[in-house]
């Protein structure tokens, strides 16, 4: 993570806190980041230098209209407006991790084929805390490619309990 990314993340988090709804803004930023991760066309549109910045910012407003708070929309538009659309995913990820770190937590990115309810997320967080020894904040990413089960990524550690991993193991044993 570069210093520029960290400074932008700190700025976004400070602005969200200044507005008084940091957790909501960070949550909305995380959701936008998931969409950005899976949508190559959107990622290229926001980082295309041949597209006027005004048009790119307008695209962000149109995309998030009614889907996110005004603060969230404005912060994303601000990052795109300064020409950092290409690093928007990294900035959002850094913002989420900084927000968790402010509570002495680590972010656990959990990939699942289905959405997890609050109870499952709490029990999963508790289980991860017992397993890793660190307090974690669970961020669920819907990923149908895991087929079933969960894949948890905390920093550089990956705990893969997915059906996809078992199928891959089966493929390797057959090859």
């Amino acid at each position, binding site marked *: 993570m570069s210093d520029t990314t960290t400074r932008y993340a700190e700025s976004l988090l400070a602005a969200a806190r200044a507005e008084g709804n940091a957790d909501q803004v960070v949550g909305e930023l995380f959701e936008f980041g998931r969409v950005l991760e899976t949508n190559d066309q959107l990622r290229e549109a926001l980082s295309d230098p041949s597209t006027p910045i005004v048009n790119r910012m307008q695209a962000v407003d149109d995309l998030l209209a009614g889907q996110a708070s005004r603060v969230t929309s404005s912060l994303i538009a601000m990052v795109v407006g300064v020409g950092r659309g290409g690093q928007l995913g990294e900035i959002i990820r850094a913002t989420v991790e900084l927000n968790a770190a402010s509570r002495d937590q680590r972010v656990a990115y959990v990939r699942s*084929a289905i959405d997890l309810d609050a109870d*499952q997320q709490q029990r999963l967080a508790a*289980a991860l805390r017992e397993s890793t020894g660190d307090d974690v904040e669970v961020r669920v990413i819907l990923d149908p490619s895991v087929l*079933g089960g*969960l894949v948890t990524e905390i920093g550089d550690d990956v705990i893969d309990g997915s059906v996809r991993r078992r*199928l891959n193991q*089966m493929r390797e044993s*057959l090859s």
Partner: protein
Amino acid sequence: MRMRTKAMMLAAAASVSVVAFAAPASASEETVGSCLAETILEFETDSGITLHELEEAAAEGDEEAKKELETLEEEFEACNESPNPILPATNEIIWGGLSFLILLGMMWKFAFPAVKNGMEARTERIRSDLAAADQAKVDAQAVQTQYEAQLADAKTEAARIVDEARQSADQVRTDLIARAEAEAAELRERANGEIEAMRVQAIADVQSEVSEIAIGAAERVVGGSLDRDAQSQLVEAYIQELTSK
């Protein structure tokens, strides 16, 4: 050359002297014709008749005439006896002998030494020529021996070169055969390796294809069979597994 000229001059002088002092061989002797003529003339003068009249009287049977005629014929036969063709006249023998002695003395004095010297010089020259010829023969034989030795050396050298060339050719042939065999073995080994690699790759491809088909089928089966409850059970199992660690 000088001696030869002097000898020739002496011989010419001797010849001139013989011609100058010698008289004709028959100058002091009468010929057959003159002998006959003198006999006939003497008969006609003594008898007062001619030879023809005598022959006619003898033919008529006169015995005295026949005897006279027989006597005359004997004298004719005596005239017919020619002088000795070999024996020269006496004066010629004298003058010729004298000239011969003078010539012999001159030649003994002058020509013979010159001839002797010439002969000795010629003998010496011939001897030296023979010696030179012998030396040349010896030299030629030495040269021939040298040439024969050189020829023998050349033949030996040629044989050695041919032998070396043959050995080199054999070595080259052996090397080429060995290289060709090595290349053939390498090609065989490479071909076998490629065939083995292709076989392994084909098996791997088949296995991969089979596994992909099997995994694809498994994914479709799993994807179709994993409903919401099954997904929740997998999540719970994951949480339980984390807790049990």
